[in-house]
């Protein structure tokens, strides 16, 4: 049986389990894009593993006809790390949400990214806890009224892109649940990337936080900057762009050569391999003051934890020879007791 020669379709990545998300949940669209993309990428089911934590998004592995592990709240990056270190030939994807990945599992997220563990992490950000029935999350805006905050939340939200960049992630991207094309393009590059991938997916929870991203998604032309490597940051059909002013602040300008307008050459040019400072600048472009950048925000090549760890084992074997247990027992201070007494 050589399954590799058979081109798999989206259907091959679907399981026989009933999908149990609420009607209208953004997760359905994400699932469809991932299933179709894996088919297009030509990966095999057996070498693909989806690992998730706890939350609505974390049910994802049950619906992927690959290997999958639905683990515990926040810990998916840790569990995925152990798998990837020992089985580097596998494609290991991590599915998490804003509560799972940035609250209870914030520590694991930080360390998986800084180690550049070769994991592909998708964070579904709907700014709410869904499975526990609607409490505000670490990405909820200040003042969010939710089950646990009837008079509004009083803590400042975290910016997932900033966190990932700050942790040293080597592939950081953003998309939305409804942008199948943009998401698929990111997935293709993410799959090829060697190292930790962090994709923030702006996702809608129709039950507990309906429409939280509508202003961005419904008005894509004016509220999204589609990132193209080497091209200036523009939106609104190219009529508006982003420029840095003298105070090193980003500002929205009209694009053109006329009076009061800024020529294309005056705009910030997107570089996927740009400096971390630039990446952080993009991360700060958020609604409602700015259109939000979509696509690959930052990319760089760095050694991965898993390849270095394996290299150390190979090096030890090359230098010391494969382990000999008998010799290992004799390491340290050993002496022999003969029938007539003690020998050394």
């Amino acid at each position, binding site marked *: 049986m050589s399954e590799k020669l058979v081109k798999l379709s989206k259907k091959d990545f679907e399981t026989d389990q009933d999908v149990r998300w609420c009607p209208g949940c953004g997760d359905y669209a994400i699932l469809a894009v991932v299933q179709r993309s894996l088919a297009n990428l030509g990966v095999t089911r057996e070498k693909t593993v989806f690992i998730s934590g706890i939350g609505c998004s974390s049910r994802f592995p049950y619906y992927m006809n690959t290997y999958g592990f639905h683990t515990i709240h926040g810990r998916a990056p840790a569990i995925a790390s*152990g798998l990837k270190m*020992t089985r580097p030939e596998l494609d290991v994807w991590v599915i998490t949400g804003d509560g799972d990945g940035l609250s209870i599992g914030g520590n694991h997220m930080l360390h998986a990214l800084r180690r550049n563990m070769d994991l592909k992490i998708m964070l579904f950000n709907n700014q709410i806890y869904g499975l526990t029935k609607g409490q505000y999350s670490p990405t909820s805006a200040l003042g969010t009224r939710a089950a646990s905050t009837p008079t509004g939340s009083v803590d400042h939200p975290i910016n997932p892109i900033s966190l990932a960049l700050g942790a040293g992630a080597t592939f950081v991207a953003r998309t939305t649940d409804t942008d199948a094309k943009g998401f698929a393009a990111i997935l293709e590059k993410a799959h090829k990337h060697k190292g930790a991938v962090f994709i923030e997916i702006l996702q809608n929870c129709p039950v507990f936080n309906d429409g939280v991203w509508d202003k961005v998604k419904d008005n894509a032309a004016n509220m999204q900057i589609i990132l193209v490597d080497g091209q200036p940051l523009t939106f609104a059909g190219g009529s508006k762009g982003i420029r840095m002013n003298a105070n090193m602040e980003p500002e929205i300008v009209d694009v053109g050569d006329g009076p009061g307008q800024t020529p294309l050459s005056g705009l910030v040019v997107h570089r996927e391999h740009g400096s971390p400072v630039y990446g952080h600048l993009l991360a700060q472009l958020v609604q409602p003051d700015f259109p939000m950048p979509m696509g690959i925000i930052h990319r760089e090549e760095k050694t991965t934890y898993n390849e270095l760890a394996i290299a150390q084992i190979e090096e030890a074997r090359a230098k010391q020879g*494969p382990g000999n247990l008998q010799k290992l*027992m*004799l390491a340290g201070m050993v002496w022999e007791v003969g029938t007539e007494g*003690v020998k*050394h």
Partner: protein
Amino acid sequence: MATKELEHVVIRFVGDSGDGMQLTGSEFAKSAAEAGNDISTFPDFPAEIRAPAGSLFGVSGFQLHFSSSEIHTPGDAPDVLVAMNPAGLKTNLKDLVDNGTLIINSGAFSEANLKKAGYASNPIDDGSLAKYKVHTVDISQLTMTALEGTELSVKEKTRSKNFFALGLVFWMYGRDPETEIPRITAQFAKKPQFGDANIKVFKAGYHFGETAEVFQTQYKVPPANFAPGMYRNITGNEALALGLVVGAELAGKPLYFAGYPITPASSILHALAKYKNFGAMTFQAEDEIAAIGAALGAAYGGAVAVTASSGPGIALKTEAMGLGIMTELPMVIVNVQRGGPSTGLPTKTEQSDLYQAVYGRNGESPMPVIAAKSPGDCFYAAIEAMRIAVTYMVPVMLLSDGYIANGSEPWALPNLEALKRFDVKHRTDPTDFKLYRRDPVTLAREWPIPGTPGLEHRIGGIEKDALTGNISYDPANHEKQTHLRAEKVARVANEAGALDTLGEDSGDVLLIGWGGTFGSLRQATMSLRAAGRKVTHAHMRWMWPLEPGIAKIIKNFKHVLVAELNGGQLRTMLRATYLVDAIGLNKVQGLPFKVLEVTTAVENVLGGNVPRADGATAARTINA
């Protein structure tokens, strides 16, 4: 010069935590082992790395028991106390036997140091040490003199003084100093100037013993009668690490170890990090939860996975253990117990995590628990834990404790050829594959791993269908699976060998113990039996399921005495399981049992001096 032959000696070195007492003690232990003595060691040090010099709480000690006959413990009370400063003398003198030998570094008995130790007058000359054989030696000054002309700073020279003490005791016990010199050279290979200085001072100490007329007698402890074979000196954590490497080899799988720094478990990680050429992969995770999470991820991928910690870290790992139990993945979780609760006594020993190991998870979540009994036994317990984990597809907890983890003993090298292999087989056949179909004997599910075509499956913490492994909220299925998981663990009892006992199957007192107290209880039982007492010692290795051999004898004795370094955790389990009115012998001082404490308790019980049940718990306790 007279030479006096002794059967055994207990010597304790005490000084500041920066004085190198652990090194002095362990080097002297090696020389005793090398000379053929049976040895047992007890390092006892503060949690602070370099506590303020001269303070009472900064005293670090190392006790060594060496003998020409078989011994199981580091000794109840030192015959010889080497005190490097007043604080060490102050905190340890009460343990020295009457008429014991006291070697004092008089150079450290300055007014300031005496004051820090709370001495109003200098004990060296105020008569308070009259009942001991006191030898005062100005080790500080003699060390400086020995290093005159070297380029070391005063501070660096001072650091060598522990080697003067080592040289002195080498002479006292007739050890060959030439055996030590290569060890010092090797120890300081990276800083040869310190190695040279230490050798100089070591020799000076030895020659001081030889020439100064302070010591009238040299002592000789003849070699013990060991069974012929190869031996090495080993600590529990070293043995445990070796056991994991060998266990992985016996399973035919790579070893994956994930840990997070914690006393007293860290040295297992340190040891394994050096075994990369055996294919062992170690991972220092970001926290305890990540460590067990990574281990579980590796287990899902087919590695033999291990994590190790101590009580507080084990608490953090609890949820992931539950996931391992639910998904039925094999894993070994090592708990090197220390004093608790919370941070407790990080460098001291205790057996108070038994409830945590057996009961400490949410839901109905039994899990096999095995306890090692001695430093060398950590090797075999590690292999056994791994074998059970992969055979029964279940996480297994391996209990050690600070006492056996850091303590050392001569260890007969195992015959690796004789160890039974337990090669892991992963299913590859997709025909009629049901993830939770169980082996009829062990009830283990199969262990298919990612990368295998046709066996793609999803697992997780939600209850699973008893056959397919798909999510199931069916009430009857949940109950069935709960019973199956418990029954699977119960069947591990079939793997327990004969109960480790000394004595008859009936009598006056059944002394039950577990874990690292084995040595004290066995030694106590030997002496009680020699005095004609009808006492049997039963040592439990499997804590869950409860060692089955216990059931057969527990009702055959007039009294059941359960000795533990906790408030009575095993006693409660035994009372609940067997409805016997067991008495507890309990101690929670961060210290192991003394043999005398055990013999006294047994004599009390035999003499009818049995504590009455206290109203609150109906538990009867003797406090050691």
